[in-house]
């Protein structure tokens, strides 16, 4: 197992290299010019050219990529063109809100979605099953921002239970922290709950038709024991896979959710950087997201062995 982990970690290095090259090339080819944005409307073409030169944007592709890659290899993500702040500092400022939002969404979604999926599978074809699937379809098809606006209108503006927007760091107290995140997490969780509930139901239905489930029932095991001890554990591998894949969904959803609720997270940082063509920030954040995704995939692979002892690496 340890050897497998080491191999996977080592494989991460070339993967990140390819991602870095891809991201850099994409931004190099993309239209837009940060120098023109910085120079503003007052600038002449000569002034734009001077700014471009001062930022090193007039250098050839290989020179720019080489310099950037060298700095990345030394742990330096560079400096934002616009704010003049280190990219690592900007990411550090923004990572707590995004991580908090994603973790809360993940935990709440799993706590709601898995029991719902199990319930729907156990009551297949009944009104309960249809209600759960209807909820799942709605959650999956309703845009995140619509859910966000509706929740904010009802629970913040009308009932005044939660703030409309903003983020309170955990250091500011647990309840203020939680209060600020409940609506965003509920918004972001809708699509995630729908996805996991559907997969849980499908996976459970497949497992529930297996012989060993019939055997368990035949020997007198109760419904709860059958569902949660025997069936769910064996249905867990596809669920864990979808939970892992769904993190990408969460990252995408976080961009919208952070904008709707004005949360100063990495999603908004990314959007702002893209709109301004702040290349070092875009590259840094995309690299971070890619790295996180690689790590999550590794964790998912390791979790397989926990749920299914037959899987060995």
């Amino acid at each position, binding site marked *: 197992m340890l050897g497998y982990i080491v191999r996977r970690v080592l494989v991460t290095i070339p993967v990140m290299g390819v991602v870095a090259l891809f991201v850099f090339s994409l931004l190099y080819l993309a239209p837009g010019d940060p120098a023109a944005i910085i120079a503003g409307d007052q600038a002449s073409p000569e002034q734009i050219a001077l700014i471009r030169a001062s930022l090193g944007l007039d250098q050839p592709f290989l020179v720019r990529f080489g310099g950037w890659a060298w700095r990345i290899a030394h742990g330096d993500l560079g400096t934002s063109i616009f704010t003049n702040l280190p990219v690592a500092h*900007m990411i550090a400022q923004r990572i707590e809100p995004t991580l908090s939002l994603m973790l809360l969404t993940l935990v709440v979604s799993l706590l709601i979605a898995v029991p719902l999926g199990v319930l729907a599978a156990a009551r297949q074809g009944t009104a309960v099953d249809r209600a759960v699937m209807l909820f799942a379809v709605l959650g999956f098809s309703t845009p995140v921002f619509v859910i966000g606006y509706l929740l904010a209108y009802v629970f913040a503006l009308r009932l005044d239970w939660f703030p409309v927007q903003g983020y309170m760091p955990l250091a500011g107290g647990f309840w203020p922290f939680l209060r600020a995140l409940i609506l965003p997490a509920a918004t972001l969780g809708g699509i995630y709950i729908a996805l996991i509930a559907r997969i849980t139901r499908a996976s459970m239905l497949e497992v529930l038709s297996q012989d060993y489930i019939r055997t368990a029932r035949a020997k007198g095991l109760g419904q709860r024991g059958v569902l949660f001890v025997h069936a769910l554990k064996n249905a867990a591998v596809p669920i864990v896979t979808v939970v892992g894949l769904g993190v990408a969904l969460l990252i995408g959803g976080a961009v919208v959710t952070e904008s709707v609720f004005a949360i*100063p997270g990495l999603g*908004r940082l990314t959007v702002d950087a893209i*709109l301004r063509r702040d290349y070092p920030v875009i590259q840094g954040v995309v690299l971070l997201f890619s790295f996180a995704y690689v790590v999550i995939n590794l964790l998912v692979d390791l979790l397989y062995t926990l749920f299914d002892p037959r899987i060995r690496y």
Partner: protein
Amino acid sequence: MQRRDFLKAAAGAGVLAAPRLAGAAGARVLRFVPQANFANLDPVWGTQYVVRNASLLVWDTLYGLDSGLVPRPQMCEGHERSDDGLRWDFRLRAGLRFHDGEPVRARDVVASLDRWMARDAMGQVLKSRLDALEALDDGRFRFRLRAPFPKLLLALAKPMPNLAAIMPERVAATDPFKQIGEYIGSGPMVFRRDEWVPGSRVVFARFDGYVPRPEPSDWLAGGKRMLFDRIEWQIIPDPGTAAAALQNGEVDWWETPIPDLVPLLRQSPGVRVDIADPLGNVGLLRFNQLYPPFNDVRARQAVAMVMNQADEMHAVVGSDDALWRAMPSVFTPGTPLYTEAGGEILKGPRDYTAAKARLAAAGYNGEKVVMLVATDLAITKGQSDVTADILTRLGMNVDYVATDWGTVGARRAKQDPPAKGGWNIFHTWLAGLDCALPATNIALRANGPKAWFGWPNSEEIQGLITRWYDAPDAGAEHEVAAALNRAALDFLPYVPTGFFLGYQAWRADLTGIVKAPFPVFWGVGRG
């Protein structure tokens, strides 16, 4: 952990948070939602209005423009001008200090103006007439000019970017094409860099060492008296969220509510809504004059002949007719130089038959007209949709390139042929304040390669702008303005598409909100 232990811990966390909240509630804090994201704070390097607005809190200027567009002394006590207009001596007010505690000295002023003149258009004209700018002692400095420059005070006072902000000499020594590293000014508020979260939150704390002028405040003139200890800018990119936050009392003042949400805000108890800037904004259609068809003035005139400002403005502000007016002029309505002399091409019924004949005379033969459209900005998108329809009805082959403002900003700077990555036309808008004067209206300049994107070349327009610089009094300025308007609406470096206003909204318990081209924080209080 037991359930009760968990609840105790959570409650304890809440109790621990209480002093922090109480502290914030005790301080006099103004929570403000600015017009845009705030990414840097250099009043010379950064030209966005949002940067200018923040800079006005942190940095002071030697002179300040009042609501009558007259420059008044701000950091300066006064000045003396020689009879021939070639020597100007200025005296700084006593007691001026930077946020780091150091006194403001004349050599700080010299270094700051040197940096500013390298970037600012008016500053560059000043520099071209400058023999020397020198510090006489700590409190006095002198301009020695090769030729008179009657608009010197205006150049020092104007709030249009780039701002002639005064910073410490060591900071002002920064290359004008690079950002400054220290945000130290002598304005009424200190920028709290340690609390800055770019794109989310900007904090300013009151500068106790600031000594306001004794006169009443009037825009950038007079005493800048801060009635709040802290001003917190909260960047809320989503207008719906900003409106809800204002209704809920989570923010105090929203700089630019969109027209769609204004009826909702008007109905909200505890919220006030009014026009933000009496000088508003000016929409415009810009031509690339390097390539056909718009390198021929007749093609530009054909478009102006069918331009319907009412339609353009309805696309920008909706059905609220109080928010716009037609302007057959290159000057902002309501400002001293406004004139409609020569504006006939934008008045009266639109004549497509005559316009088509004018276009044919220009030799247009169905070539593609590349129109850059920033669809992420409602103002440019609305204007572009109307204009695309006009051009199509005129018989032009419109290539509607829908993209974002970042791409438009880069592509419009390219001088390549339209078919090879260049462009023919794009829409944008300028602040009304900028269009109040020939010197600050960038779209009016017609000095060819050095002109704004589109690169119009008209010696007549350039000559008239120079004449305005040299105009000794208001009468002479009005005379030049009329001639300039006639020349501009004949040559058409751009077509003005109309004048439009925007709203601001604030909590009803705020006092002292004024209408201005920028948020005026001094004099704003609560209760």
